[in-house]
Structure formats: C-alpha cells, structure tokens
C-alpha cells in the first residue's frame, strides 16, 4: 500500500482545523467555518468507508501498516488496523460530521474554536484506534483529553469548571500509572511496538502489576464503577456536541484498550483479574440502572445509563468467548450510535425550552410528532429491543457471559429489566401524558438538519439490528485469533 491512508485519516481533520485557525468566527463567516469543518470531516468519513472496503476481513493481520522512525531505537510512529480497530475508526468518522452538523443551535460563541477542538479530537481518536506503538497510543489517548476538557470548560453550563476539572483529574490520575507501565514494558522487552510485543509476550511475574496499571487508566475512561462519578457531571455540563463526542467515541477508547492491550498483552493477569472485572461490571450494571431510575435530569439519566451499558461491555470482553467479545464490540458501536442520538434528542428539546429537567416536559407527542417517533426508536434501542443494534450486542454479551459464569449472567440480565423501566418511564414523562406546561405548545418539530442527523443515526441502528453481519464479519477473524492466542499463552504461561 503506497498511499498512507491511515495517516491521512489522522491528519485530515487537523488540516481542516489548521485552516479554521486562521478564520475568526463572527456572524458573517460562521456559515463558512461550519462548512469547512463539515466538509473536512465528511471527506474523512468517505475515506474511512474506502478503508473499510479495501479491508480484508479474512485475516487477523494488521493491515495498512505504516512505520516511520521518530526517535531512533525507541519510538516509532507505527499505525495499522485489524478487524477490532477498524469499526471504531468508522464510528469516529461517522459521528464527527453529525456532531458538527448539530452545532447550529447549541454553540453561539467562538464557533470556529469549538470546531477546531472537535476536529483535533477526531484526529486524536483515530490515532488512538490505529496506533501500533504503546507510546504513540499513550500520546493520542491522553491528548484526547485536552479538547474535551476545553469543550466542557469553555462551552459548558453553569458548573462547567467543576465538571471539567473533575473530568480532567479523574482521567489523568489513571493515566499516569499507564505511562509508568509503558516505560516498564520498554525496560523489560526493549520495545514498545505492539506487534512485536504480541509475539514476544511479557513474563508472567510482571503481568499483574502492569495489568493493574493499564486497568486504572481504562477503568476511569470506561467508566467503571466506582470511578464513574465524573461522567454524569461532565455530560450535564457539556454542550450537546460535547456530550455526543464523549459518549459515542471517548468512552470507547477504554473498551478498545481492554481488548487490544489487557487481553492481548497480559493474558495471565487478565485471567487473574477477571473476577474483579465481573464484579465491578455487574455492580455498574445494577447500581447505575437503579440510579438512572431516580434521575430528574434527562442528561444525567442517559449518562448513568451509559455507565450501565459500558458495564455490559467490560463484562463481555472478559468472558473471552467469541460471542462475548463480539457482543462487546457491537454494543460499543451500538452505544455510540444510540447514546449519541439520545444526547442529541435531549439537545433538541433543550435548545427550545432551555431545560433538561424531566418535569418541564410532558404531553408533547402531538406537538412534535417527528421528534417523538425518533426519540422512541432510540429509547427502544437503548433498552435493547430485538431488531435494534442494542439487542444484538447485549444478547451476545450475556450469551458469552452465561458460558463462562452463570451467576454473573443472571445478575447482569436483571439490568435488562431495570433498563426497560427507566427508559420507558423517561419517555413517558417527557413525551406522553397531559400537556400541563403551556410554554411547550410553542415548540417546533425537528428542523431539516436535526432530522438529517437523527435519521442518519436511526438507519444504522435499525439496519444493524436486523442485519449485523457486516459488523460481525469484520471482527470475526480478529477476535477468534485473539482468543486462540490468549488461550495458547495462558496454557504456555507467557
């Protein structure tokens, strides 16, 4: 492959951002600014589709690998994709343009700066999902925090500073340990190249500590219980587009990291710590579902439900079953689509009424019918109704979990019941019922760009619900090889 397609994917959004850097945003050129950003990210999306078409899903080898020396004998800029990473890249490039399209109403000031942050973030995220060198991975992983920190801190709501710092501190604390672990790995093996590390393996006696160091970073980012409390605050204060990026893409870095590094590099430690992950995941699913039930703020409710959904993801990954891990990846993609859509849905009514409280609403189904239909669809996808992508992920995860541990699967399945309760109750209180608040009568239904955004999220949600084959085909071989290597390593104790 001569054309450096992955580097282009990483760089292109930054190039767009670079252009925006020189335009000052004011009322006159807001339009131009937005379309430059939109155009850049859309081209990037097309490029990633092209990547998906070229991608050969019959092998688990890394493809489109590019390598350049950065620091001699130490760090290489090395990128490449396999079945596991490619879907996340697609998710990133798919969500970003929608995000940019959605800023119309929510971002009133400093539009071009906001879009620069979004585009830079896209670059970093794609970098995370295709880096094949630990140091590069770490850089992208941490750098992703900065634009998000700014988005919350500058464009956020009333308590934005508190939330931004909480977000930053939480996620940074975990990551410091990961950096230490990466340095240790370099000492031990003399390389940070992921492919090489895969073939070398890491001595069993070091694995536990290293695993814990990586875990501390990933657990915060997932977020797993009990380090999840930054998420609701961050979501509540973030502007709509920020919430979307956070829920749809940022949270997926950790899940990806668990599969790529925790399972890939430290199989023995993963086996040791599986009970820990199971316990935390199950607690996350049950506890946060109950918490979600009692929320009065729509965004907080969805944020808590995200924690529960990510609980399924971590649970599925550590089942080390084909169904479990595949389910986790599909769940992540699905959650990316659905939670993005739900946050956008909240954004739609927030832009009109400037309230996120459930009490404000009620009885608006006949006032904004189009909105109600789409919101219903995403509600159903969030509660995992068969025929939506949410079902495929959840069901496969639980199936995999059941193979590994009855008790965990049984408890996790209870989450499905509570999930139905809080989502339907939310929907009922917002959309159905008698219209009491007279201000609501003035609400207008979805405008064109909102319809386009929500519909483009609805289509894949339904499509992959009925026909998840394109997703599963892409990851199948990579996952089965991963499991095979994992079990082989486990048996041979490296």
């Amino acid at each position, binding site marked *: 492959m001569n054309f450096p397609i992955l580097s282009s994917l990483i760089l292109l959004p930054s190039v767009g951002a670079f252009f925006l850097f020189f335009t000052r945003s004011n009322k006159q050129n807001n339009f131009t600014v937005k379309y430059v950003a939109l155009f850049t990210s859309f081209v990037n999306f097309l490029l990633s589709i092209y990547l998906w078409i070229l991608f050969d899903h019959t092998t688990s080898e890394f493809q489109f690998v590019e390598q350049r020396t950065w620091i001699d004998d130490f760090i290489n800029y090395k990128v490449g994709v396999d079945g596991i990473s490619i879907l996340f890249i697609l998710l990133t490039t798919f969500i970003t343009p929608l995000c940019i399209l959605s800023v119309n109403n929510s971002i009133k000031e400093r539009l071009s700066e906001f879009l620069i942050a979004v585009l830079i973030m896209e670059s970093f995220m794609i970098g995370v999902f295709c880096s094949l060198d630990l140091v590069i991975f770490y850089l992208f992983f941490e750098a992703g925090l900065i634009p998000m920190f700014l988005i919350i801190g500058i464009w956020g709501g009333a308590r934005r500073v508190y939330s931004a710092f909480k977000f930053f501190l939480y996620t940074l604390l975990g990551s410091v340990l990961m950096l230490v672990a990466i340095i240790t790995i370099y000492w031990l093996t003399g390389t940070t190249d992921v492919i090489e590390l895969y073939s070398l393996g890491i001595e069993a006696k070091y694995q536990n500590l290293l695993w814990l160091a990586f875990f501390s970073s990933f657990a915060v980012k997932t977020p797993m219980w009990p380090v999840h*409390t930054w998420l609701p605050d961050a979501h509540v204060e973030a502007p709509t587009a920020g919430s979307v990026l956070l829920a749809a893409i940022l949270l997926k870095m950790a899940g990806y990291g668990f599969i790529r590094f925790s399972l890939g590099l430290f199989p023995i430690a993963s086996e040791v710590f599986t009970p820990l992950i199971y316990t935390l995941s199950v607690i996350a699913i049950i506890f946060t579902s109950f918490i979600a039930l*009692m929320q009065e703020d729509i965004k907080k409710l969805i944020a808590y439900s995200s924690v529960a959904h990510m609980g399924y993801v971590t649970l599925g990954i550590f089942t080390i079953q084909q169904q479990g891990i595949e389910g986790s990846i599909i769940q992540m993609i699905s959650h990316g689509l659905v939670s993005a859509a739900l946050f956008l849905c909240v954004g739609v009514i927030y832009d009109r009424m400037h309230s996120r409280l459930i009490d404000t609403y009620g009885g608006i189904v006949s006032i904004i019918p189009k909105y109600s239909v789409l919101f219903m669809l995403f509600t*159903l996808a969030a509660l995992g109704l068969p025929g939506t992508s949410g079902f495929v992920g959840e*069901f496969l995860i639980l199936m995999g979990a059941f193979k590994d541990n009855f008790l965990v699967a049984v408890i996790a399945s209870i989450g499905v019941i509570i999930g139905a309760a809080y989502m339907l109750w939310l929907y009922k209180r917002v959309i159905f*019922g008698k219209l009491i608040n007279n201000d609501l009568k003035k609400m207008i239904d979805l405008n064109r760009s909102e319809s386009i955004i929500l519909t483009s999220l609805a289509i894949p949600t339904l499509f992959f619900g009925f026909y998840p084959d394109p997703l599963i085909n892409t990851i199948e071989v990579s996952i089965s090889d991963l499991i095979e290597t994992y079990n082989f390593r486990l048996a041979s104790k490296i």
Partner: protein
Amino acid sequence: MEISIIALPLIASIISGFFGKFIGDRNSEIITSLLVSISAILSALVLYEVIVNQYQDNIIIATWISSGSLNVNWSMKIDALSAVMLVVVTSVSALVHIYSIGYMSHDPHKPRFMAYLSLFTFAMLMLVTSDNFIQLFFGWEGVGLCSYFLIGFWFKKESANKAAIKAFVVNRVGDFGFALGIFLIFYLFGTVNYSEVFQQIPNITEKNLVFLGIEINAIDLICLLLFIGAMGKSAQILLHTWLPDAMEGPTPVSALIHAATMVTAGVFLVVRCSPIYEYSEFVLNIITVIGMSTAFFAATVALVQNDIKKIIAYSTCSQLGYMFFATGVGAYNVAMFHLFTHAFFKALLFLGSGSVIHAFKDEQNINNMGGVWKKLPYTYSLMIIGTLALTGFPLLSGFYSKDAIIEFAYLRGNTTGYYAAGIGIFTAFLTSIYSWRLIFKTFHGNYNNKEIKIEDTHESPIVMLIPLVLLSLGAIFAGFIFKDLFIGNYGLNNFWKDSIFFLKPLSTEHPPLWFLLLTPILVILSIPTAYYLFVKNKNLPEQIVKNNKPLYLFLLNKWYFDELYDALFVKPSKKFGLFLWKFFDLKIIDGFGPDGISAIIKKFSVKANKFQSGFIYQYAFVMLLGFSALLTFLIVK
C-alpha cells in the same frame, strides 16, 4: 407465497404508519385491513395444505446473527403447529382490523392505530413461524412492544401510560427468565435451532448442573426458565398483574392481543418445546399447579369485578390457566385445541363488549348498564353465543376443548392430575357464574345508567357486527369441526406429526360417565342460578357480600397482588436508587474521592500559604529551629 403471509402485515404497517398522513384515514384502514385479510386467506390455504397434503417446510429468508458457533436465521417454519397459529393470528387480526374501522371512527389517530395493529400481526407471525429460539424472542419482544404501544394508545390518560409501562416491564421479568433459558440452551447444545436442540435432548436427560448453588437437572432448568417467560407473556399467576391493567387500551386491542393471540404465546412456547418438556416431569407438574392456580384465582376475582372488560380479562387469564394445565398433564394437542377455540369466542366476547361500550358511549361499569337487550339485539345474541361457548355449553366450541382438558387431567392418573381435574370442574362452574353475571347485569334487569337515556343507546354499525358474526360462527362450530383433527386419536397421528412430541402416548381410555356429565350439568345449572342471583333476587348477593366483607374485599382487590408488588419491588427499587445516588455516589465516592481529595489539598495549601509570611525573622527562626534539630539528631546518633 408463505413469506407474503408475514410480509403483508409489515407492508401494511409501514404504509399506514409512515404514509398514513398522505393517503388519508380511510385509505389506511382499507389497505391495512385488505392486506391482513389476504394474509389470512393465504394462511388458511397453508393450513389446508398441511391438513390434506401433510405439507411441511422450513424456509430460510436471510442470516440474522452469526457469531462463532451461534447461527441464527430469519426463517419461516411451517408445520401443523405453526399453521394453526397462522390461521388463528391472521383471521382474528383481519376481523379486528375491520371491526376497528367502526370502533375507532371518532379517533383522530386512525392510521397510527391501524399501523400498530398490523405491526403486531407481523411480530406475532414472526414469533409463531420461527425455527429458532432467538427469532422467537424477537417476535416475543416485538408483540410486547406493540402491546405497549396499543395499551398506551390514548397517551393523554395517565392510567393508560402506567398500564403500558407495567405491561412491558412485567413482561421483561418473564423475558429475563426466557433469555436465560435461551442462554442455557446455547450453552448446552451450541445451537438455538429447534430441530438441532430437540435432537440432542434425549442425550442429556441425566445431566445435572450447579446453578446458583443448587444442583438441578439440566432439562428441568431449561424448562423452568422458558416457562418463566411463558408465565409473563400468558399472564399466569405471579406475573399476571399487567393483563387486567392492559384493558386501558382500545377494546379491539384487548380482543386481538390480550385475548386471542399474544397472551397465548406462552402456551405456544410450551407446546413448541414439547420435545423438551416431555423429559421434565418435575416442571410439567409445576406447570399444572401454576395453570390450575391461575384458572382458579382469576375466576374468583372475575366474580366480583364491575368493569366489563376487566371481567373478560380475568376470564382470559383463567382460560390461559386451563391451557397451561393441559400442557402440564401432557395433553399439548388439547391445549392447542383450547387455544384455537378460545381465540374465537374470547375475541367475540371482547368485541361484543366493545360494542356494548360503544353503545353506552364509553361506559364500562356493568352496574351502570342493564335492561338493554332489546335495544342491542345483535350484540346481545352474539354475546350470548360467546358466553355459551366460553362456559362450555354442550356442543359449542368451548365444550369440546375445555371438557377435554378436564378429562385428560383426570386420565393422567396422578395426584396433580386429579387435583387439576377437580379444580378444573369447580373453576368451570365459577366461569359460568361470572359470565352469566356479566350478561345479566349488562343486558337484563333495570336500566341503571344516569348519564345517557336508554333511547340514546344504539346498536353498532354493520362494519362492527360483521366480524362479530364471523367470530360467532367460529365460536359455535370450531369445536365440533376440528375436534377429531386436533384431539381425536386419528388426528393425533396424522395432523400434528412431529410438531408435537409425546414421550408416552396419551391415554385413549374414557373417564367414567358421571365424570363426563358433571361439568356440562354444572354449567347448565349455573344459568338459572346466575339468573336468580343477579336478576331475580338481587338482595341475596348483597347479603352475601355483607356477611363476608373481608373475603369480598380480598377478591375485589385482586388478592392484593398489586399492593404487594408495590411494597416489595417498586418502592424499594426507588429507595434503593435514591440511596445509591444521593448517598453512595455523591457522599461516599465523590466525598472521599475527587471532592474530598481536592478539599484536603485546598486546606493543606491554605496552611502552606500561611507559612510564607514574608518576614525574614520568621524564616530565620525556622531555619535555626531546623538546624538545631538536625544537630541534635546527629549528636544523639
């Protein structure tokens, strides 16, 4: 052709749901009714083929999920069992579609209503024609969803919204068991296709599992988990609470979903899985007990209810109980027979009650009715037919199916069987009493409605009566005509083939004559009894109520199940959620985590701040102090 049976309702639903606004109310109604009717005709043809030519097929439409060893297809399995269900679902659905044109004529959201009905039909057909457990689950949740939409159809009513959510969530509790059952099946057999699973069942009869600390036979466990799902969907005792509340939906919905089709899905599931259940005597006995308890419980509650639809809802609950205890005693074919006949007469009763409600302009309390049998002659006589069929009056359809259930329970020859037969007979008597109570209070006696004059009550339009007439034909003749096919010894071998599996062939003996005559005699005697109680001597029931107040309240409040669940599950859940949020997340995690740490750092830095006072003599003093401390340390050491 077979696929179009499923596809037509879906197409109808899409047309009416998305384009209803453009094509108009009337066109949506016509298109949906027409397409579903075509689907019904095709289904009848399929059933004919199955009966005459022993037609069987398993059509694969597309792949759905294939992950590792898991392989799930969108499929259509046609055999005797699914053919019967096809006919029940599509024919009742078509009639309900037509009836709705009249019933919903004043509603502003007709296309939406028709779209839901058609969508429901589609989901139900997916459920019955599946060849694997996961597509079954798809249909299972799909019908639940449509039920949710339709119960909450009048979205401004708070009670309707609540009932809708309750229905969905209670069903999810059942689905939780069902899903675990599917996981277990996949765990044990590595597949979820019926035929592959059923083949392997005999190999694992001895296998035991440790499940949540209890050692249990694998097949027993599968059966138990699947049955939990069936209990939810078919509103069996413990998970029945949603069904009476579901009557908040429009009446055609009650007839289609909450009487004829969806609620029978649980029975269908057990019958479909007869190759598994036959190996689990233990769970079959549980089913019998649950079935007869439900039959009895619901009948007692129905005795004292005043809402016309709730009475019929409890009656449905009770009849479903009969179907379950039929499967519990191994008479799957009889359960299917009762399901089949029940669909007709129960839909007839519901649609008839809808006609009554229509006549009284949305009045549902039977105490506010009475004396209108001359005003509503068609509705009256059709309701009588439905009631006769339900109570098992000789020669009508309910007689053949219900009495067969009681007989087979008796012939089972074990303790549960005898108990079931006894309770079955007693419940049949109760059924008869409450059914006739409904008829007499609604149509006979004095006119009790204060809001509408008797002159203003009116017979329903023809478009509502035609479906009633067709259903009444089914209620009268379905039993007699299909008796031999469904439950005759001759039919057993030829019709069901391998769609129903019997480990031991059913007994072909006959119970003693007195036993055969007992039920019909009770049923016939109950008519004058009910007439005496509810028309002639109205003081007597009131006297009984007065003397047995606690019992009456117990029944009126439906054995206090709702209150119990509220106290056991709903309130604690909310409290628990609040506790986890306000106390655990905010106080403990945040308090000791980020907020706590930042508070400590702040405190510390304030102290450290004070240290830097800027006065040189203070710094010098501290230096001196430190120097002397160091010196002392060195000297002492």
